[in-house]
């Protein structure tokens, strides 16, 4: 069942997805579709999830007070809901980013000897 698989992917990516959304919003407010596209582009299509999975993450961030939402009109004159970073969100992004970098560095360190052996 595809839905079950989606759910697992979402769980796996949950923390990452939050981070990516926050990162995307640093450049200014954006609606859901724009966020999804931006993430896709920037991760060079590696992070492929159903766009629908974005919304639970957005709701979570809203609830945590890291982003806010407001109704607005898009560039092509359509009604849409725009999300932007709060001060808290900006701070959270900084700490999370540095933590993520440390984590990624650690993972790379652990994995590198194995990679060499396999090579």
């Amino acid at each position, binding site marked *: 069942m595809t*839905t079950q698989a989606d759910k697992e992917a979402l769980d796996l990516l949950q923390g990452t997805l939050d981070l990516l959304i926050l990162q995307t919003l640093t450049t200014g407010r954006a609606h859901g579709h724009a966020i999804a596209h931006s993430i896709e582009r920037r991760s060079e299509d590696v992070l492929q999830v159903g766009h629908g999975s974005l919304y639970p993450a957005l709701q979570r961030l809203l609830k945590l007070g890291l982003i806010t939402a407001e109704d607005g009109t898009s560039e092509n004159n359509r*009604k849409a*809901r725009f999300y932007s970073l709060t001060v808290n969100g900006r701070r959270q992004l900084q700490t999370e980013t540095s933590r993520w970098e440390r984590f990624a560095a650690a993972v790379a360190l652990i994995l590198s000897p194995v990679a060499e052996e396999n090579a």
Partner: protein
Amino acid sequence: MFGWNHRRRQLLDEFEAHIDFETEENIARGMTPEAARRAARKKFGNVLHAAEDARAVWGGLWFERLMQDLRYAIRSLRAVPAYTVTLIGTLALGLGCVAIMLAMVDSVLLRPIALAHSEQLVKLWGQGGPEGYHASDFALSFPVVDELERSSTLLSGIATYNTDVHPLTAQDGTRITLITSASANLFQLLGLSAHSGRLFVPADRGQPVVVVGDGFWRERLHSDPHVIGAVVELFGKPRTIIGVLPAGVQFPQGSGSDSVFVPAAINAKGENEFGLDGADTIARLKPGVAAPQALAEAQSIYLNMAKTPAERERRLMMRSYQETVTGDMQKPLWTLLAGVGALLLIACANAANLQIGRATNRMGEISIRSSLGASFGRILQQLITESLLVAFTAAALATAIAFFAVRLLRHAYGNDFTRFDEISLHPGMLLAIVLLAALVGIISTVAPALRLRKQMVRSSGVKGSARSSALPGVLVSLQIAVTCVLLAVSGLLTRTLHSLADVKLGFDPHNVSTLVLIPADQSQSPQVSRDLEARLLERFNTLPGVDGVTTQSSVPFSNFNMDLNGRTDVDGHTYREGESAHYSLVSTNFVRVSGIHLLQGRTFTQADESSGDIVVLVNEAFVHAFSPDRGALGTVIRFHRNPGETDADQPVAQNMTIVGVVENELQGGALDTPYQPLVYLDFAQFPRQSMLSQIFNVSAQYAVRSSLSLPVLDRELRAAIKQDAPSMVEMSLRPMSEGVEQSLGQRRLALRLVTGFSGVALLLSAAGIYGVLAYSVALRRREIGIRMALGSSRKETAMFVLRQAMRMVLIGIVPGVAGAWASGHALRSFLYGVGSLDPLTVALVALTLLMTSVLAAALPTLRAVQVDPTEMLRAE
């Protein structure tokens, strides 16, 4: 609710916008609009899933899901009204019966023993004659109780009480009242504290004070809150009310809460204010002490203390208070409760079967939901919600049923059985019913749900779902077994009632009223009482419309019998330790008025009074016990004397000569009591100086045979009493047949309950059989059609269905009969004139079940034989 809906709407709008953006981009990339939209939707994924996950973040989703499930459940249940009504009706009947029985068990068994640590309370008494054929119970004398209190190390307290009825004067006049003379420590021992005022303290011993029960306070004192300090009059002396017992205290056993308590005053002769030298004894074991241990200690104390000669022959006995109180009702009620539990089981089985059938019909719907992304857990939750909705509706209905049934019971039996007037449903029980309903709801969903799961795992083809399973058949067999037990028990009770109705009373109760009088003043001399009694007897006998009046110290079904059980020597028969006979004092015209059959010899005559010899009549049981071989007529009997006993120790010192033998007469108030040897003495000949004269003159019992209507007779009798014996108070005046009815009442009630329950069980079983067969026929229409096309006749087709019904019934009857035998055995003390496994009953029950199953199978069979083979083949 509004908030959720709003948020949901907002999210869905947002999704819609998202997909629109994507679509536009796709179109810009050169896709056709249609393909562009499809690709956008695909990329977005499952909309509802995303919406649900997003909203889950906000919490409270469970409630929204619940409301959604409830709306869904109501909608889908309304689509199948027949199913819903059957299911709710089935469960409501099952739960309703349980609620009724719970109410009875609670008020009859549990509440009366609601005393602090009632498991520590025991009753003590003496039992006569270890040998011989009759052991009677004796109250312990006050010195014995005192000695036990002094010496026992295992009892934390021991208290005494005597209950008697006496006229008591309150603001509302003089009325016969239950008076309990209690030792001052009784309430403390029972762990009671006053509702208002205070209870007895040791200093109250013999003081002119009373404590009143809650019932007395409500009825006679009109719940007056300022009653403490008020004065009532008892035995011609004023007494001050010092306390009121809390509501719900039912002590002494059987008196409800109507008793008035006086602190016992024991005089120098060791007698209390009623002139009794002993009392009911209740003791509390110290924490952790086992009853047998305490009994052994008490027996050794009893063995070593100074006693009267009579006491020396007795043994000390002990029984738990709880058992004493609930004793005779305990077994039948628990058995009935078990029966009702079984009934609920039947209802559950039916509900499960109904749901299995429905689940199979819903396979299509459920497969669709499942392929749309609903997990098994989510579907199960939905199914359980639906079950719970049904179960709670059924619980509400059951409560209503029980409420009316309990009112009916209270109305019909409130005056006949102690504590039945208090039967009620209270919140605790309602909670129990609701919990039970929830349990039933969940249990009856599990089986269908498991089947669903199995079928979901298999690829859900339409043909796959048409496979039938053995489970429904097994459940029906179970129902049949339980119904068989219930039917058998009601059969046994019916036969018991029939046997009891055939019991010969000896005393012909037709047109007889029993009148009991006592002197208003307890100190009235026995001689005066005796003369009054004789004068009234004469007067009553001359009343117009009265055919005859006799006095008798123990009239069948009277609650005011005086019983003398004396060790008896019979000439020509060697006395064996403990042999005794009962003695009944009657008036000279007893045989004529009672209608008892004189089998041999003659009856009493006026001439006997003046002759010096005492002549007696004996019953058949006496002849059987003492002189089975020789004729009893002319035999001389006398009270047995132990060495050292003098004339003064004997009720009657003279020899007594048997002049007649009468048929057995019922003794006491129960039709199934075995007949005891009985000697009839003419009251006119009873020695005036006898020590028992005083006891026998405490009350006078008249049996009046008259064809007058009851109100007229009652008026005549009362007028005569007022005129000739104004110092006597009426204790009881009622038709003897009322007593006969009352003695049957307990069994009749049990029969009605069991019959009601087994009727419900039969109905449910029939519904169960019908359901399974109808479902199976519906599933096998193709098979039946093919069989018929291949040459099977309609008769064979009918047999095909009926065989299935018979199989379920026969498989159920085997454990059913075993269960019936076991419950018959458990109820054997309640049965009379029928064994615990009665072949006739079993045969009738089996026949009933088979007939019922044939009836239940009729419609499905008809449907099966009407299957048109050509149509079926065409469908193939």
